[in-house]
């Protein structure tokens, strides 16, 4: 029942209990991950054996390799950052162009193009990955057979990971930037033009400042989604895995709490990003982050 109607006492209690249970369900896995980053034991499992910072600072000599000395893990983290930067730059640039295209121009088959732009959201990430893998391998094979050149960037590796992630993150950037451009009052641009501003000046001084929140928001979301992407990345990855793929590999083997340590940093980073964006944006703005897509 809604707040303005009388509610029975049992219903109030039940509601409160339900919300509490729901929040426990949401947060228990995260709290557990964070807690066991500090457990003085070789595996992230109970019982609690005391507090230690070994899984952050331990060096190979002490027998426990902490996060700050785990070269492979730090390297894969850096790989993820580099990939995410490329994906962000590409997605925001193409997303901005798409927003202007869809909001300002009319052309042949515009409706079909707008549906096609949304298609990446309904393609499972695994299939997006294998389809790009199969096309790029075919092109690389043909190049080798016809021109005798080896196109390494078309073989599984970071360039393909960037393209695969960009393929669907571009849709999200497009939607976010279009949504803001749609609400823009075009009389502002006309006023500036009447007052003698050039088209470039209008774009630079009027339109882009207005779009800024959407550009920043979509950049942050693109970065986060790229950093956390797993499905598409797994299909396209080559010799140097990004962080999610490396963590997955170690989780299958039964990893040390160093994974908890790196997870703790990831949680802090995304919480910080989330709070910053939520403060800036409205409730519905950055709605859907991390997905399996």
């Amino acid at each position, binding site marked *: 029942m809604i707040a*303005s109607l009388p509610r029975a006492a049992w219903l109030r209690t039940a509601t409160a209990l339900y*919300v509490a249970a729901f929040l426990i369900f949401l947060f228990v896995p995260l709290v557990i991950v964070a807690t066991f980053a500090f457990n003085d034991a070789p595996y992230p*499992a109970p019982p609690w054996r005391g507090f230690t910072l070994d899984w952050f600072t331990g060096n190979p000599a002490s027998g426990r390799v902490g996060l700050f000395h785990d070269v492979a893990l730090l390297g894969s983290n850096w790989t993820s950052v580099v990939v995410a930067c490329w994906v962000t730059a590409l997605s925001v640039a*193409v997303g901005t162009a798409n927003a202007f295209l869809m909001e300002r121009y009319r052309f042949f088959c515009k409706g079909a193009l707008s549906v096609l732009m949304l298609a990446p959201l309904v393609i*499972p990430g695994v299939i997006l990955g294998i389809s790009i893998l199969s*096309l790029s391998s075919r092109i690389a094979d043909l190049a080798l057979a016809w021109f005798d050149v080896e196109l390494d960037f078309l073989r599984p590796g970071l360039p393909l990971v960037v393209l695969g992630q*960009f393929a669907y993150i571009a849709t999200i950037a497009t939607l976010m930037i279009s949504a803001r451009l749609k609400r823009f009052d075009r009389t502002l641009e006309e006023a500036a033009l009447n007052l003698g501003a050039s088209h470039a000046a209008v774009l630079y001084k009027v339109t882009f400042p207005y779009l800024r929140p959407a550009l920043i928001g979509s950049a942050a979301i693109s970065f986060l989604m790229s950093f956390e992407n797993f499905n598409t990345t797994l299909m396209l990855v080559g010799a140097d895995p990004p962080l999610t793929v490396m963590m997955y590999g170690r989780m299958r083997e039964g990893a040390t709490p160093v994974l*908890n340590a790196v997870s703790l940093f990831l949680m802090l980073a995304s919480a910080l990003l989330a709070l910053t964006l939520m403060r800036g944006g409205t409730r519905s703005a950055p709605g859907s982050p*991390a997905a*399996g897509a």
Partner: protein
Amino acid sequence: MNDALSQRIWQRRLMLTLLLAPALLWLFALIVLPHIDLALLSFRARSAPRHYQPSLSQYDTFFTEPLYWQIFVRTALLSALATVLTLLIAFPIAWVITKVAQGRASTLLFMVCLIPFWVSETVRTLGWLILLRQSGVLPALLVSLGITAQPVELLYHNATILTGLVYTSLLFMVVPLIGSLESLDNSLIEAAYDLGASGPAILRKIVVPHAAPGITAGCIVVFMLTLGNYLTPTLLGGKNSQWFTELIYTQFIVRFNWEQGAAFGFLLLALSTSMVALGLRVSGQRFVDVMRRS
């Protein structure tokens, strides 16, 4: 005057071309052509080394090998079940956020619900692994409470996979539900209540019909993501997960049988797309609107 006009038209055409180029490049090079290639791949079979001929044998294998289609059906059913469970768990929360909690409490609750989903799925799954495995937190708790004598293995069950999938999907249900419940006018509920309608009747006759677009949008997105999920089923289900995406991965990356993997990929894509289309048809919505909503 005429010259200036024609120059402006020319400029606008040039701009249109410049803006169309990246969009077309993106959509054709990374979406359309790869899928055409994947389709071609799935419709061929190797007759001799480096020789291929058109064939339906990949699809034939799928239908004649019981293991393959059983895993396909299993994945679809578990995804549907996960979707329903997600809806049942998310609906009361969306209701509390929009209709029961007031002002700041409502905003705060909403933000608190969102925060876990900004964290990578890998991290959340790690949490479930530590909680549920035989040497994990929950089995130890059960022993110390005297409920079980020995630590039990809570991983590798269907229920474990479902728990993980529901957990990952909640956000994608809560957000569209909130969107559709927010627009429901409270006075309608008050009026129904004053006229003597019971709680279940109000839910059935007023709330659900109004929230139907949000419910459909949430269900479509959750089903799609669950069906295509790889990380959660493989880690929480282990060897018992038998998830269809795992089959695709095995064919493509482990066995290097790309033709078979492509066929499996297309079957999954067909299921996913037809469920989206069905959902849209049932609720009479447009694809574009649903995607904007979620």
